[in-house]
């Protein structure tokens, strides 16, 4: 897995063609709401349990 593959997959999932321009001010003090964190943790747990058929 390469850095480019991760970037390509993220752009594809977000429907973007290029990396968004964001600077430090945009994210400084940005809090992650509980429901977003809960969604993230749930996906994380499921992905550890999930087994795609791969091959």
């Amino acid at each position: 897995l390469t850095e480019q593959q991760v970037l390509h997959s993220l752009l594809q999932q977000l429907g973007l063609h290029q990396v968004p321009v964001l600077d430090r001010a945009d994210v400084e003090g940005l809090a992650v709401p509980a429901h977003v964190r809960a969604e993230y943790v749930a996906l994380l747990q499921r992905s550890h349990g999930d087994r795609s058929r791969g091959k």
Partner: protein
Amino acid sequence: RFSQNFREVAGRFLASEASTHLLVFGMEQRLPPSRELVQAVLRLFQEPVPKAALRRLERLPTRGARARVTIEWLRVRDDGSNGTSLIDSRLVSVRESGWQAFDVTEAVNFWQQLRRPRQPLLLQVSVQKELPGAGPADIHRLVRFAEQGTRAARAEPQLELHTLDLQDYGAQGNCDPEAGESKITRCCRRETYLDLQGMKWAENWVLEPPGFLAYECVGSCLQPPEPLTFKWPFLGPRQCIASETAALPMIVSIKEGGRTRPQVVSLPNMRVQKCSCAWDGALVPRALEP
């Protein structure tokens, strides 16, 4: 019977109509999880044509003296209904006699997807005219396959299962973390960490995770010596591949209308869960209908 080191699997004809036969093979214990099915071959012994019929055949052009043999996998559903899937079909000469081989690998693949306890492997063998309408009406009835208990008892239907022992031909799970690069010989899953914080493009965009264990499949796979009965085109060597992967959830920042908000996104197939030795170009088993 035709291979030095595989036990024979004799089958029985359950019901027999002039042109359709139903074969049953008991499969339990034949394909334990430690063995990978490579190919399954059905061998049927085509009985010689009686002399009188042979004389009649002499008058036919070669083209007309053929019949189509079709093998279908028969599945009996829980509700008692059944369905068939086409597995193999080809023309045989009515004049021939002896063993005919059919590739029934897909039938065994289907059977392996059944829920336990599994029914026996049911194969429906039908013999049809080569071309509907053309040639003598019943020429295909001269194609007869030996059943169990016939004169030539050793000519009963045979199912040949070519399998590989995954102890030798499979992957070995996770690599030994102590083993250096040069020590890794056999296909295994090795830890590799991707540091997202070290990636310029991720700055201020990817909030979680800071990095993750991606793993990779390294090492090589043992190649089987035995040539297959049916040569599949495009079949390459056995390779060490990621046979199971998992998604990677992330939290990214999304800027809309001057405001920035965090959002969850999931990237498929980002982490390797399992490495396996698999044939490049091998048949991908058709999924069983529910």
